[in-house]
């Protein structure tokens, strides 16, 4: 079958070329998966929580306009400003305008996948602002001028020595050898930034419609510092982050950290209603394709995502190929759904970067049917829009041919016999094309002379010729 060779397999190959780094990456993420399992095992109600979370999110999505209005009304009541952005460009414009109007040039930012999605940092930097990512992992990749490779553990693809080299090269740090001293160095560097910042930009983990508040979860306390010191706080959120009631946080606060890092809860779970006294709070609610996704019945469930990263930690492919192999800001199983939906032609390889093992679906705290959607995207690529016409025709034609061959036992038998015969007589042929990608590293199975059906038919014929054989038991 024609195989569409695109970026994920090629990048995965580069990732795996460094065997030791790949081994570390896989082992580290598996350990986090294992810790998640332990946290889940502590709660007999774990599966009930997942079911509740899925239904709360599904309900919220179904009544999204009402909840958006309610959230806006309550947030305004507390003195927050609420903005709506159609897309990434509008989001960036709104944020920049808020900063420019107040003469802000120094910004601290805590982790927000939404701002990654919108490309906020490069946009603000182009306008001459200093934007410092304060999540340690995000700071490291920012200094290296590369994207994060995991939505929760941005620097998981790096070793300690890489971080040390980066700090020395970009911040003038002395040579440091361990995580403790590197973190200590970052602590003083960032404290100075927090204290000098004129604005703090954060993401939003949950937005509560009933109260108009936002919830931000971190382990480092960097979001809290960013909200507590500068006078201007800008909170950026996708419109799917809404929850109906404060009580719903009971469910999500029990699922999020356990799923994400294997902790019972993050160090800080901040609840913010309105600005600080003397300060300003601006909440920017972003669409950027989410409303369109809401209209897709078979993929709408992806909007439940709470960006925990559990699917990445469990995915055997992600662990062995790394986030950068996906070429999109949110990688892994959920990213392999979101990116192709946004841009099918650019991300054709992603739904195929998957064995359909289903582990992702089994860990997702909001029960997104991840692997089923990945399979559905394969069908969509073949039958639907996107994917160059010529490739579609080629693959579809080949599929039809195979279907025609395989539906006939006679044709299957002849085809199989020919392959086995060729494989035995001309083993060199097995080094070509797709088969070559097998035989480069794996032996083929020993090719039998006769198929099961051929042997079975022959045995039946032999027994038919000797019906009085007392040993015969078969039909």
């Amino acid at each position, binding site marked *: 079958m024609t195989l569409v060779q695109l970026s994920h397999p090629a990048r995965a190959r580069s990732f795996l070329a460094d065997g030791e780094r790949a081994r*570390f990456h896989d082992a580290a993420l598996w350990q986090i998966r294992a810790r998640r399992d332990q946290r889940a095992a502590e709660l007999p109600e774990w599966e009930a929580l997942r079911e509740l979370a899925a239904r709360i999110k599904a309900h919220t999505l179904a009544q999204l*306009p009402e909840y958006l209005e309610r959230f806006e009304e309550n947030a305004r009541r507390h003195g927050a400003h609420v903005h*709506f952005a159609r897309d990434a460009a509008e989001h960036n414009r709104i944020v920049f305008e808020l900063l420019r109007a107040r003469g802000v040039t120094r910004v601290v930012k805590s982790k927000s996948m939404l701002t990654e999605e919108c490309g906020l940092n490069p946009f603000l930097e182009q306008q001459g602002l200093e934007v410092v990512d304060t999540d340690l*992992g995000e700071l490291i990749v920012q200094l290296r001028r590369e994207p994060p490779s995991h939505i929760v553990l941005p620097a998981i693809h790096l070793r300690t020595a890489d971080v040390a080299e980066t700090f020395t090269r970009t911040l003038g740090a002395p040579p440091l050898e361990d995580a403790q001293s590197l973190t200590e160095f970052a*602590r003083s560097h960032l404290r100075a930034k927090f204290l000098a910042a004129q604005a703090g930009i954060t993401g939003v983990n949950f937005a509560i419609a009933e109260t108009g508040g936002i919830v931000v979860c971190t382990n*480092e*306390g960097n979001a809290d510092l960013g909200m507590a*010191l500068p006078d201007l706080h800008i909170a950026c959120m996708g419109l799917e982050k809404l929850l109906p009631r404060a009580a719903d946080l009971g469910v999500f606060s029990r699922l999020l950290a356990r799923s994400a890092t294997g*902790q019972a809860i993050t160090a800080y779970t901040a*609840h913010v209603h309105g600005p600080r006294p003397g300060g300003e709070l601006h909440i920017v609610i972003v669409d950027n394709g989410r409303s369109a996704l809401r209209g897709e019945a078979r993929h709408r469930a992806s909007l439940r995502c709470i960006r925990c990263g559990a699917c990445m930690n469990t995915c055997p492919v992600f662990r062995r190929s790394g986030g950068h192999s996906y070429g999109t800001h949110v990688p892994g199983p959920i990213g392999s759904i979101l990116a192709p939906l946004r841009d099918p032609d650019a991300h054709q390889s992603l739904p195929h970067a998957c064995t359909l093992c289903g582990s992702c679906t089994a860990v997702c705290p909001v029960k997104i049917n991840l692997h089923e959607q990945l399979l559905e995207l394969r069908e969509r690529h073949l039958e639907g829009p996107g994917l160059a016409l010529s490739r579609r025709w080629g693959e579809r034609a080949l599929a039809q041919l195979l279907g025609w061959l395989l539906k006939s036992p006679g044709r299957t038998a002849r085809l199989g016999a020919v392959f086995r015969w060729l494989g035995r007589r001309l083993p060199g042929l097995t080094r070509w094309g797709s088969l070559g990608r097998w035989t480069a590293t794996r032996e083929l199975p020993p090719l039998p002379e006769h198929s099961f059906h051929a042997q079975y038919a022959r045995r039946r014929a032999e027994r038919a010729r000797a019906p009085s054989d007392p040993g015969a038991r078969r039909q």
Partner: protein
Amino acid sequence: MSYRKELLARLRAQTLEPVPLPELAGDWITYPDREAQFGAALARAAGSVAVAAAGDVRRAVEALPVVQQAARFCSLVAAVPGNLAPPGEPGGFRDVDVLLCQAEFGVAENGAVWLDERAAPVRAGLFLTQHLVLLLERSALVDHMHEAYARLGARVGQKGYGCFLCGPSKTADIEQALVVGAHGARSLVVVLY
């Protein structure tokens, strides 16, 4: 022109199957010994528990090594005097070695405590202080987060800041090595009384 109106119209034009909002009822876990569970969970989060004998919080706090070694100890609790008045402006808290506050209640399931601006009027203090010590009444322990939010009730939606705090600031962003004391407090002790 704001995108708001167009967005709401787009969303309303989509017809989705209604999904009922579920009742938040369930057979939630309860702990026969909340204090033990709380202590164990907090320890796993790199925090620690000290118990005030006979409810003498002042003695218990002053006996803590982190307090004894502190040059600048700022107390926001009347019963325990510090040697430093709360700084006037938020940035001043960076010079505080130990900050003492009253936590409102704790959650056994995960070792977290709830604080809001009544406990820490200048919220920056909680994150700029080098070390954090929190007082917590033993009777103010709930089993799990559902109970926590029920206990907060409508107050959770009041204007201002509130936080579930669990252990000190930490990160494992460098090669998954746990480092305690990232940007916030380097240590956290909960004194139970």
